[in-house]
């Protein structure tokens, strides 16, 4: 019996740095051993702007995680995000040569079709982060899951390609490396979060996961079980706080508290001329805040972000095709009535995502802020499972997960 393996997932977020340590049993079940968290400084919009400061915070979080779990963290799965990360879908197609005993599709053919699909012109400074297989088509037959061994003349593959600016991704990696901790894999945040926030059934029916963090709003949309779109809008909870601070003319710390304690994404009906009294302190003279006004500011920001997201998605896909609806996660999804607002804008059922497919005592970790690092553990387990399968003699399963998430050449390049 194979023994349990321990993984660590790390997310360097705009508002907090979070390390989750999880144990994966031989049967694939995941148990969270503990987490380490530290407020993040030196990070703006999901990307490190102040190296030294961010590193100090990262160190704090790691030490905390190590203490709590009694695990030495030597390598991590790292989640990254940033407005520079973009995605696209591309199709590659090859013709299987005729010949004696030919027309049978082989692994090599699939590798070739994959290379073709990935052969898109990226901006010069960009590199692939992920290329995820969506569907195979064999002679026009749609949604072939496993074409190896089938007969066909033309094989096509749809790949979802996520790419970003190489140097900017490397900066985050370098920050971790200098701790020093090695980075096993770099994962685009929403892809990681979706591993735990969406069930297979939801992915099949079509779901949109929106992770509203401190500095960015990341999203991934699944259609027919595979990733159709993903991306990042560099607007998050920080913006809401900043908006409140600027419009109301209150300090940022006060604005943050107003947002958390009194804020709501929906503007209440009139008749409620409620005021929030801000106590004065040595640096700030007291103020009365109109609650309707406060919510209007929040509402304007979130609806704008949702509308942008919707418009982005609608460019390529019909949002109405999402059978399972919209799922919200991330720290800012704790904002009151944000689901109602999302329902209004997307005209789809909206729910606050909860962590699925984790065994053990997950209750203490039921926090949307932890979605991404938790997802990283699941992701790690899938990658690992994939690796072991490759050495498995049962060829049929070999490619089932193969190529699912391949493509990150960042780590090698960074050496």
């Amino acid at each position, binding site marked *: 019996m194979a023994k349990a393996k321990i993984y660590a997932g790390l997310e360097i977020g705009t508002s907090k740095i979070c390390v989750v340590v999880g144990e994966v049993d031989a049967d694939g079940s995941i148990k969270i051993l503990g987490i380490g968290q530290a407020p993040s400084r030196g990070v703006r919009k999901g990307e490190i702007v102040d190296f030294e400061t961010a590193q100090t915070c990262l160190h704090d979080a790691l030490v905390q995680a190590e203490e709590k779990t009694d695990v030495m963290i030597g390598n991590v799965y790292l989640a990254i995000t940033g407005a520079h990360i973009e995605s696209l879908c591309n199709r590659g197609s090859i013709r299987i040569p005729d010949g004696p005993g030919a027309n049978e599709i082989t692994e090599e053919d699939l590798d070739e079709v994959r290379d073709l699909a990935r052969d898109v012109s990226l901006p010069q400074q960009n590199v692939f982060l992920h290329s995820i297989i969506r569907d195979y088509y064999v002679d026009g037959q749609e949604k072939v899951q496993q074409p190896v061994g089938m007969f066909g003349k033309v094989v096509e593959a749809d790949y979802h390609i996520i790419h970003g600016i190489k140097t900017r991704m490397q900066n985050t990696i370098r920050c971790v490396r200098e701790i020093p901790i090695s980075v096993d894999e770099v994962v685009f945040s929403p892809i990681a979060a979706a591993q735990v926030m969406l069930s297979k059934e939801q992915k099949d029916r079509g779901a949109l996961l929106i992770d509203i963090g401190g500095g960015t709003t990341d999203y991934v949309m699944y259609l027919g079980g595979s990733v159709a779109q993903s991306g990042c809008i560099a*607007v998050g909870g920080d913006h809401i706080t900043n908006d409140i*601070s600027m419009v109301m003319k209150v300090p940022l710390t006060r604005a943050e508290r107003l947002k958390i304690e009194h804020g709501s994404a929906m503007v209440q009906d009139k008749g409620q001329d409620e005021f929030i009294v801000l106590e004065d302190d040595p640096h700030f003279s007291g103020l009365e805040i109109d609650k309707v006004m406060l919510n209007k500011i929040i509402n304007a920001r979130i609806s704008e972000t949702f509308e942008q997201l919707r418009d982005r998605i609608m460019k390529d896909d019909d949002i109405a095709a999402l059978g399972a609806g919209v799922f919200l996660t991330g720290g800012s999804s704790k904002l009151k009535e944000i689901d109602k607002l999302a329902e209004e804008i997307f005209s789809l059922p909206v729910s606050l995502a909860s962590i699925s497919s984790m065994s053990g005592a997950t209750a203490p970790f039921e926090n949307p802020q932890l979605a991404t690092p938790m997802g990283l553990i699941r992701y790690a387990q899938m990658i690992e499972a994939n690796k072991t399968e490759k050495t498995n003699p049962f060829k049929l399963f070999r490619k089932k997960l193969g190529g699912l998430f391949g493509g990150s050449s960042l780590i090698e390049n960074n050496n």
Partner: protein
Amino acid sequence: MLEYERKPADGESALAPEKVKVIGIGGAGSNVLDRIALHERMDDGELLVLNTDVRDLVSSVAEDKIQLGKELTQGLGAGGDPDLGKEAAQKTEDEIRAALEGKSLVFICAGLGGGTGSGAAPVVAKIAREVGAFVVGFVTMPFSFEGRRRLEQAESALVQMEKCTNALMTFDNDRMGSLINQKEGIQQAFAAADQIIGQSVGAITKLVAQPGLVRIGMDDLLTALKNESSRCLFGFGQASGDNRAQEALKAALKNPLLDRGQMLNQSSSLIAHISGGETTTLWEVEILMNELSKYVNDDAHILFGVSSDKKQGESLSLTIISSIGKAGSSQLNEPVLDIEDSSEIEEPIEGEGDAEPEFGLSDDSDKEDSVFSGEVPEPFISDSDEEDSDEEDSDEEDSDEEDSDEEDSDEEDSDEEDSDEGLQSHQQDLIPEKKGGRGRFDKAEPTVTDEGEDLDVPSFLRKKKK
């Protein structure tokens, strides 16, 4: 760091200054000319002012003056009647023709809407074309408060100008007016408009006249401005210091016509011309162009030019010229000078064609040159003493602004909004930035949508503005 290799002989193959004529027509035109004469230091061309109103004519600082329709108006203005302006110009045609003979590049500045500008400008443009010059028009459209009548006159004159010029840059006074401080008087609003046109003329002359490592020619100018009957986008920024590439871009984007760079993504082609001293590095050019490309549509055609000019010393300047048009705007007029022909006018001259040497930040005493205390400059300031005193005035007024700029601080939105003096500084950030700062994101990378909206500014504030 990679140094740009300089051409062995700098200063060669520029446009001969005697072949360039800058004409101001009517009251607005002569104001622009005054501004050019005083502040832009046009070494590159002769200034000519045409007017029906003899009083205006007398007060102009241009070296050449032609009174239009002496007998017709008896030295009075055209009284807001374009027909009278047109007739006056036609009656003086011979004189105008004589003045334009042999010119290869003619700039015509006029304020449309009034009598002389609207009436005479098309006539003059036509004459200039007939003598074989490449004609670039700079026209202002009246403020909407000037009334419907004037707007109609301006529009019909605009149509005529389009036919008669090779390239036309249209400046909407409303736009410039609305972007300056609400408290400003009308004088200042007009003066701001003049200032921008003056800058454009100076920059364009410099652009086409200056020898370049990567040259921008008339052909490029035509491409960038091919959306006729459109709004012209123009930005100019200059900076020095460690971060000069970014600073210059920032200053250029602050120009009201660019609306903080947000207008740029609507344009299909634009000129980006970088001019710097010997210390300009390829790396800086690369940074600047990379930054600029963020504001520009992916498909847009960027006509890129670099020139190096010793006079600029440590400073680096960026000129952005483009236009955005109404859908289906008219095609290019047949240019008098073809792309090939444009080389003909680049006669080599000794010296160099630097229209604005005084902008160098490195030289403190000089940079205050953009006198802008809110008034149209006093006429007849031709001797340097008076100009100096003027400079001192603005020096005091500008000092706050100056400090913040020199300390290399990032955009101090709110400060600039409130200070009247923010209107003008050496960096040409003459108009305050868009209302509504970005708070804590001031120093972060901006998040701008494809539509050009700055997402760091509170949505609430943006929504209210709409």
